[in-house]
């Protein structure tokens, strides 16, 4: 009873959150390596993307294989609004989030009539359409060769220019995303989301407007993705359509699954794990298989996904905890149940 009361107040989450924030704040002091700082920054971006998907897929139970669509909308909004329409970079970031949220809401009204595989296909289609727009509307997007000269963000007259600046800025937003999302999942709306995941019909009979909740979660996940997109565009200064393909969407799914779909911390962990593995594979595969290119990386990720789905379908964070408990429990009685049934 007491333990759970504390959990409700968010204490373990709060402690974990503070440790993480302090660790991240201190990291650049000890890490004098731009490459590592950049990787950490990318982890922050993918944390936001993965949390968005985790809310949608893990909590509300709605599949999306097209999260990179909103990542792209955010990035290109930042680029186009700030250079062509003369908005300030901050306003462009906000506009991108609103646009992505709005697009998700409208598209959601169409595609949430679908369930399961059909919904997954529709979200894939959405991603392909964005890719076509990005590559075809050359006047606005720069086409396949990309968009150069996305302006830097600035805070109080100071323009953010170094990798470390962006490291702090992007992690700041990632931590806000984590905090807001932890609050959401432990609330009235969080329960409504989990309820609709578990039994849509039961949730409805409790007065939960499941249709509206799906749209709201989808819009929220899109806004998170667009936030990551806008920051990404500003951070790199250059964006191209290849960053917002289905491959990117799949990578986000992979991160969410690895971490454990219905866990905000899992999303963070999954993003970090996949990006670190990806960096490692790039060097490891080349030394193992001379002349290897991107394909081997995809195969390796496919393998990881398969293994996790087979052995830890709830993801590493949730799965490891359960496996540990099961192991302790299994010590006592021998397995007695026959196979099948």
């Amino acid at each position, binding site marked *: 009873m007491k333990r759970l009361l504390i959990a409700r107040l968010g204490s373990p989450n709060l402690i974990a959150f503070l440790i993480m924030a302090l660790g991240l704040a201190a990291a650049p002091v000890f890490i004098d390596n731009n490459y590592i700082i950049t990787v950490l920054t990318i982890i922050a971006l993918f944390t936001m993307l993965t949390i968005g998907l985790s809310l949608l897929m893990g909590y509300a139970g709605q599949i999306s294989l097209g999260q990179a669509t909103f990542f792209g909308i955010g990035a290109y909004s930042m680029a186009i609004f700030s250079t062509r329409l003369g908005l300030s970079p901050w306003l462009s970031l906000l506009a991108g989030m609103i646009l992505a949220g709005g697009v998700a809401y409208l598209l959601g009204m169409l595609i949430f009539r679908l369930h399961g595989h059909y919904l997954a296909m529709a979200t894939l289609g959405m991603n392909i359409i964005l890719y076509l727009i990005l590559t075809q509307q050359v006047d606005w997007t720069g086409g396949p060769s990309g968009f150069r000269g996305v302006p830097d963000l600035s805070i109080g007259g100071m323009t953010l220019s170094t990798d470390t600046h962006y490291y702090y800025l992007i992690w700041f937003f990632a931590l806000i995303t984590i905090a807001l999302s932890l609050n959401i999942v432990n609330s009235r709306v969080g329960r409504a989301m989990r309820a609709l995941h578990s039994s849509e019909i*039961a949730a409805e009979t409790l007065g939960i407007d499941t249709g509206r909740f799906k749209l709201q979660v989808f819009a929220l996940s899109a806004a998170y993705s667009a936030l990551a997109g806008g920051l990404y565009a500003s951070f790199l200064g250059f964006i191209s359509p290849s960053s917002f393909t289905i491959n990117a969407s799949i990578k986000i799914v992979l991160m969410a699954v690895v971490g454990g779909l219905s866990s905000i911390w899992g999303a963070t962990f999954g993003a970090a794990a996949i990006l670190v593995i990806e960096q490692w594979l790039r060097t490891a595969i080349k030394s193992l298989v001379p002349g290897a290119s991107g394909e081997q990386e995809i195969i390796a990720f496919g393998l990881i996904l398969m293994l996790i789905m087979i052995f830890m379908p709830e993801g590493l964070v949730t799965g490891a905890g359960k496996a540990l408990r099961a192991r302790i429990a299994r010590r006592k009685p021998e397995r007695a149940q026959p196979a099948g049934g």
Partner: protein
Amino acid sequence: MSDTPLLRASRLFKRFGGVMAVNDVSFAVQEGQILALIGPNGAGKTTTFNLISGTHGPDQGEVIFRDRRISGSRPSQIAQQGLARTFQNLQIFGEMTVLENVMAGCHLQGTAGFLAAALRLPKAGAEEKRMRGQAMSYLEQTGLAERAHDPAGSLPFGQQRLVEIARGLAVQPQLLLLDEPAAGLNRTETEELDRLILRIRDQGISVLLVEHDMNLVMAIADHVVVLHYGSKIAEGSPAQVQANPDVIAAYLGDDWAAPPRREAADA
């Protein structure tokens, strides 16, 4: 107002393919009443239930609840009108705790949206606390308080049924629909359920129940409606229904009114 029933189902029809699942069924639930819908398997009881709670729409006919037409509305809108239900095939949220299940039932008692929740606005915090208190009181009423923090899916079957009832009560309905609440319960549990349903009625919540367990129905129902092959064949007090020859022939004949038939030895 005093004469109008709480709920009136008028001439409901529902066809599934070639089967007339509900065929011209009408009845009314009065305020403060326990109405039982009985009938042999496949009589259309659960379908009738689904037509009332909005899970399915009727092909014809209408359902009026508190002077408003609810047939054709979404289940969530019907719940907002003050009608809650449980499910014969349990639909509890197994991964959530018992308390969270019931708090999800309190959904309509709150207003906090994504923004208020994300920012932990004081309003949302106060609401959360109030909901937890309410949910706990429903758990106490149903005898589940000690299991509040266990995952609902880990409870034994009988208690999972109670979780659904507690969750339904949390909607603060005027009419609670119970779909075979005694199915799978043992005798003690059924007796406890009896008392619980009567207590619910005494709180001013009308109850419409679908039930197989004749003892339960006859002990607590104020009014009984009998369905057979989708049609209503009788209604009245438990005593009247028991005495009705059609009912005896259709349903009660086998296991209630007449002595059990002697069968040749089963294989």
